[in-house]
């Protein structure tokens, strides 16, 4: 089971800045372990953000995104009390969704 994300969504004016930390290895598939065996690639491929249930942003990532990824973006028209949900899907098909309230 993956660890929960840390999502902070702060409104300022007519938009909210969303900062997300995800718990993920983001293994490139290019590294070798101590025994010289290649560590298989394991990384988040897709990220989606929803504002009150409506998709507002999608992204595709490669393994070059750092371990325990950070993401920041701004949602227009989001105000305090609105719900921001983030979903990631990795190359093994694992998926995780977490939600935060805009403050």
């Amino acid at each position, binding site marked *: 089971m993956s660890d929960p994300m840390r999502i902070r969504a702060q409104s300022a004016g007519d*938009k909210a800045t969303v900062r997300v930390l995800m718990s993920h290895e983001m293994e*490139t598939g*290019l*590294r*070798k372990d101590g025994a010289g065996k290649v560590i298989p690639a394991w990384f988040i*491929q*897709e990220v989606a*953000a929803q*504002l009150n249930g*409506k*998709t*507002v*942003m*999608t*992204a*595709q*990532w*490669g*393994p*070059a*995104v*750092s*371990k325990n*990824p*950070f*993401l*920041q*973006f*701004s*949602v*227009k*028209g989001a105000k305090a009390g609105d719900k921001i949900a983030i979903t990631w899907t990795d190359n093994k098909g694992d998926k995780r969704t977490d939600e935060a309230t805009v403050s």
Partner: protein
Amino acid sequence: MTTRRQMIFRSAQLGAMLATLGFLPGAAQAQAAYNAAAFEAKNMAELMKAFGASTPTESKDVTITGPDIAENGAVVPIGASTALPGAKRMLLLVEKNPSVLSAVFDVSDAVDANFSTRVKMGQSSNVFAVALMADGKVLYAVKEIKVTLGGCGG
């Protein structure tokens, strides 16, 4: 300082890169499907040879953010943004990584074309923010980031 000649070369190079990645207009694709081929593009030399279709233009309206020096290539904070209307997608590229493409963000009416993340860099490299515009234009900004310690080692 960048000479005009270097600029043309760089544009061509980026065009080839993007063409191979399948992100240039004409190489339309489904929004949601994961573009595995794009993320697998490994060989820059090969990409540079393939002089491609339309030429991306360096634009002051696109911004690449990042540090001048990264203490550790395992985590390099970078961002792509533009205030221009009509940006459909924002791309973050690291020229000298085994795969040049790091991340693609789809812009909607509900979000700013302004995204930040952190990427791995194996060595010092040019980093590109590319904006794919609704009218077919491809605009970019470039910045060199020096890495004191690579982030792709074993």
